[in-house]
């Protein structure tokens, strides 16, 4: 018996159908390109976009060719190549010829996460980075009685913490 393939999780790496589609003429300004990029999700934390993450460092549009400079979050993060691919696909869909450049200098920092990105992380249950070096409050119940379980988590950018009030574990997006 052939089982039907499981439905892709919306916005995840396996979901190519939900990719933002662009109708109409190709974008004419860098702002319009950035608007398209703001619809490209981070493959590992799909609630935030690549622009929320602050990894889009530069956009230059010339004669139908669009150069986008992105910076990796962690140097070994496997999402980086998927992100390049997703950005390329979104720009092609919009009628542009994409050229993706990886830029490591200056190195990515969580200071480049946008306010929107931080709010989306929190709403998703991931505590946003804090200069104190740990989460400010439990994303579930808001308590501040917290214990670190491990500085490493399911992706390089996250740590595992536990709330001692509601006893729930949660992810913290590490300051970097």
């Amino acid at each position, binding site marked *: 018996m052939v089982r039907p393939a499981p439905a892709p999780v919306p916005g995840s790496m396996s979901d190519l159908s939900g990719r933002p589609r662009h109708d109409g003429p190709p974008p004419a300004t860098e702002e319009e390109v950035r608007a398209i990029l703001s619809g490209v999700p981070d493959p590992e934390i799909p609630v935030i976009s690549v622009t929320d993450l602050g990894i889009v460092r530069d956009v230059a549009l010339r004669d139908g060719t669009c150069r986008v400079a992105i910076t*990796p979050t*962690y*140097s*070994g*993060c*496997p999402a980086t190549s998927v992100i390049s691919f997703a950005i390329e696909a979104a720009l092609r869909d919009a009628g542009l010829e994409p050229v993706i450049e990886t830029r*490591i*200098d*200056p*190195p*990515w920092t969580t200071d480049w996460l946008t306010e929107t990105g931080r709010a989306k992380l929190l709403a998703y249950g991931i505590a946003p980075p804090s200069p104190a070096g740990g989460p400010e409050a439990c994303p579930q119940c808001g308590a501040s009685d917290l214990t670190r*379980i*491990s*500085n*490493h*988590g*399911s992706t*390089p950018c996250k740590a*595992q913490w536990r709330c001692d009030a509601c006893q729930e574990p949660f992810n913290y997006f*590490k300051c*970097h």
Partner: protein
Amino acid sequence: MSALGPLATRMGDNTLILGHRLSEWCGQAPALEEDIALANTALDLIGQTQMWLGLAAEIAGEGKTADDLAMRRDVWDFRNLLLVERPNVDFAYTTTRQFLFDRWHLPMLDALSRSSEPRVAAIAAKAVKEATYHAERSAELVVALGDGTAESHDRMQAALDALWPYTGEMFIGDDIDAELASEGIAPAPESLRDGWEEAVRTFLADATLSVPDSDFAHRGGRSGARHSEHLGHLLTQMQWLQRAYPDATW
């Protein structure tokens, strides 16, 4: 600037070989959190390898890539420290090896982030952020396990005694290092020794572990003159696909 290629190769070979060693733990670590931490550390190191060996390949020219350097060289062309090719043995050895390496790697990258060579400085500035997490974790574990149970203490002491003779190589410079230091590209290896010793001794004291009373140093890794047999075994596993099916791609 003929010493730049060797610098990039040495840095990249260290992270490649240690990254591969750590990846051998994937799915086998004593606790889930440690399994994840080891895999994440391995991933960081392999990512740094892509940058260092990417630079080495760029300097070598002839259309070479980081993959060529990682997958198509044999033992005698590798320039990593002997320390990082030591086998995992057990969690105590793996932790101690990481600790001794991290306490060198972190100040090394910090110094390289101020290199007069911009490409070196850029890679190091990226890598030093990751190495900070590695160093923090390995030091915490050394203290927790050294000052843990009688069993964990004995295993940590055995690992320290076995690995200590492989630390000296980090601080013995050669002509390449002298050239790099004179051009402000990299610090002289000797200049990192005092800071390393101080940090390592402080953590080891907290861990109730005794520092071996010997300054004998095995060497020959970073020159390539005398790797241990362990590197050959590691490469046969890491490179088997490219050896069996040269030019294979996805």
